[in-house]
C-alpha cells in the first residue's frame, strides 16, 4: 500500500492519526496501532526513527516507532505509562484521533553498516520498542543479514512486551535465536533468571557480532561493560539516547548535548560516538 502523501508545510505541524487498535502488552505497556485517516501509515520511516505524538492540551512527546517500515498497513507504538501524556494515552479508546508528526532522528544503519553482519539484539523492558522495528525489518529482509540473536529481559515474565509475537513469530532456533530472561524467579517461568548483562556474558557470543542495545540507562551501562569484556569494540555497538525533546528537528535546543542534537543526530549512536559527547545524558 502506498504511503499517504500528506503535505507538511512545516515539520512542527502535525497530521491526524487514528488509533485503530490498542493491545495491553504488560501491566504498564500498551501498544497502539495508528493509521492515517484514510488508512495506511501516516508517513514512511526507517527502523529506529521516532514520531511526536500529541493530545492537544495534554502534551506532546517523542516515541520510537515500534513497527517496521516493511509494514505499510499501519504504524505501532509501544508505550509505557509514566507521565501525563502516557497516562492519557493509556486511558483512550480505539477510534481516538491524535496528532502525529515525524519521522524524526536518524535510524539504525540497516542498509549500510548492519548489512551482511551477524546481529545481536539486546533489550531490556520497554527498550524492546525501538529494536522491534529493526528486528522485524531484518526478519523481512532475512537474506541480507547473517546470524541473528535476540536477548530480551524484563523484571518479570509479565513485563516482557508482546511475548506472543516473540514466541510464535520470532523464535526460529538456528535462524533467529531468542534468549529471554527475567530478574527474579517466578512461578511458571522455565527460562533464564538473572539480569541482562550477566545473561549476555553467559551466552558467550563471538565478538565479531554487531550489537544493538536498548533499555534502561543502568542496563545499557552494564551491558556495554559486559560487551567490552567479551571483546566487542565500541564501533560494533549501537545504542539509543533519550533526552527531553520539543521540536524534533534540532532547533529548540532541548536535547542538545555537546554539538549533537539527540532528536536529529540521534537517537541512534554508535558507542564510540558517545565518547565524544559530554557526560550529560
Amino acid at each position, binding site marked *: 500500500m502506498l504511503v499517504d502523501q500528506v503535505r507538511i*508545510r*512545516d*515539520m*512542527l*505541524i*502535525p*497530521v*491526524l492519526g487514528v488509533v485503530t487498535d490498542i493491545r495491553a502488552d504488560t501491566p504498564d505497556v500498551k501498544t497502539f496501532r495508528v493509521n492515517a485517516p484514510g488508512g495506511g501509515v501516516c508517513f514512511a520511516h526507517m527502523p529506529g526513527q521516532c514520531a511526536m505524538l500529541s493530545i*492537544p*492540551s*495534554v*502534551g*506532546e512527546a517523542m516515541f520510537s516507532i515500534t513497527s517496521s517500515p516493511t509494514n505499510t498497513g499501519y504504524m505501532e507504538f509501544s508505550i509505557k505509562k*509514566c*507521565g501525563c501524556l*502516557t497516562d492519557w494515552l493509556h486511558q483512550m*479508546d480505539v*477510534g*481516538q*484521533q*491524535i*496528532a502525529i508528526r515525524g519521522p524524526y532522528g536518524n535510524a539504525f544503519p540497516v542498509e549500510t553498516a548492519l548489512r551482511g553482519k551477524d546481529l545481536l539484539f539486546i533489550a531490556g523492558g520497554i527498550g524492546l520498542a525501538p529494536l522491534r522495528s529493526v528486528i522485524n525489518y531484518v526478519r523481512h529482509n532475512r537474506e541480507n543479514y547473517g546470524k541473528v540473536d535476540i536477548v530480551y529481559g524484563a523484571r518479570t515474565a509479565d513485563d516482557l512486551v508482546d511475548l506472543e509475537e516473540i514466541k510464535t513469530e520470532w523464535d526460529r532456533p538456528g535462524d533467529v535465536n531468542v534468549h529471554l530472561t527475567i530478574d527474579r524467579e517466578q512461578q511458571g517461568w522455565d527460562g533464564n533468571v538473572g539480569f541482562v548483562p550477566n545473561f549476555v556474558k553467559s551466552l558467550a557470543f563471538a565478538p565479531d557480532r554487531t550489537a544493538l542495545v536498548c533499555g534502561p540507562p543502568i542496563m545499557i551501562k552494564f551491558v556495554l561493560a559486559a560487551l567490552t569484556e567479551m571483546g566487542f569494540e565500541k564501533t560494533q555497538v549501537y545504542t539509543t539516547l*533519550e*533526552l*527531553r525533546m*520539543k*521540536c524534533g*528537528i534540532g*532547533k*529548540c*535546543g*532541548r536535547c*542538545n*548535548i*555537546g*554539538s549533537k542534537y539527540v532528536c536529529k543526530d540521534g537517537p541512534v549512536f554508535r558507542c564510540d560516538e558517545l565518547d*565524544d559527547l*559530554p557526560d*550529560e*545524558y
Partner: protein
Amino acid sequence: MQKLPVSRLPELFARIDGMKSLYLPVSAGGRLQFGRWTTGTAYDPSRMNTVKSAKDFFFPQSEDLVFFRSKGKELSITEAKDPAEPFVLFGVRACDAKGLEALDRVFLSDPVDTFYAARRENGVVVTMACAEPEETCFCGAFGVDAAEPGGDVAAWLAQDTLYWQSRTDKGDALTAALEDILEDADQRDQGAFAAHKAAIKAILDDLPLNGLSLEGFGGDALEALFGSDKWPALSQACIGCGTCTFVCPTCQCYDIQDFDTGRGVKRFRCWDSCMYSDFTLMAHGNPRTSQVERFRQRFMHKLVYFPANNEGMYGCVGCGRCVAKCPAFMNIVKVIRTLGVNAHAR
C-alpha cells in the same frame, strides 16, 4: 552609495512606511525598543541599543503554530497562517545583524523553519553603524565591525548626512523604490564618509572590553572546557532567570506548549531558556540537575557547540546586552576571561 540630508529623514521614513511597515528604535518608558514608525516618531541616532534585539521580528517571543478542535474522539487540525507582513527594520546595530546570521544557521538549515523563513523573506534589515558604542560592547571580539555593518542595507549617520549602501538584492529593491528621494553620493562625500568610519574605529579601539581574546574557545575545545573546575564558582551568582537568554540576539531555544481556550486548543511556541530548571526535565528525571550544569550549557553552546556545528561561527555577537542586563552582573565576558587561555593575563 546613496545619501540623504538628515533633515529629510522623516520624509524617508514616511516613504518606507508607505510601502512596508517600518520599525525603528523608539523610547518606551525610558527603555529603547523597536516600535512602529508613525508620523512624528523621533529617531534619536545616539540611542541605538534596544533592550531586545531585532530577533523578535523574525522569531517572536510567542507564535501560534496550529489550532486543534476536538469533538468526541475526533480531532481537527488547522495550521496557523503564514506570517505575511512585509516590513523594514531601520537602525539595526551591526551586532544584531550578525545575530540574524547566527539564527539563519539554525532556522534555515534543513529542515527549514518555514515561519522564520517567511519572516526573513518579508523583512528588510537596514543597519546603522554605531557612532557611539557603549562600554558593554565587545562585538569586535566576535568579528563584527560596528563601522561596517551588514544587513540588507547599511547606513551611516555622519553629522548632517545619512549614507546608504545596499548590500543585498532585497536592499537593492528597497533602494530602487526610494530612488527619487535618495541622492547619489559623489567623490566629495567620500572624505566625510571615511572620516566618520575612522572616528568609529577609534572609539571601538578604546572600549573597555576591547581586546577580549577567544583563544581556547571554539568547536574543538569541548574537553578542555566542559570539565573545567571553574564552572561552580562562575555559576554561583546566577539566579537562574532568563534575562540573558531573552535579550540575546542569538539565543534560539524554544518551547512548544498548548493553551486550552475552552473552545479549542492553540499550540504555540515561545522562547525558552536553558537556564530554567525544567528545560530538560523528563518524566524519568533531569540530566541537568543544578544551576552549574545549566549555566555551563548556555556558555558551552555559544562558545563551543555552536562553532563546532557552524564552521567556527560563535553563538555570540558581542552586543553587550547580557553584560548590561544580568541581575547579578554575571555574563559571557566574565566567563571568557575566567576560562580562556589568557585567564590570568587580564
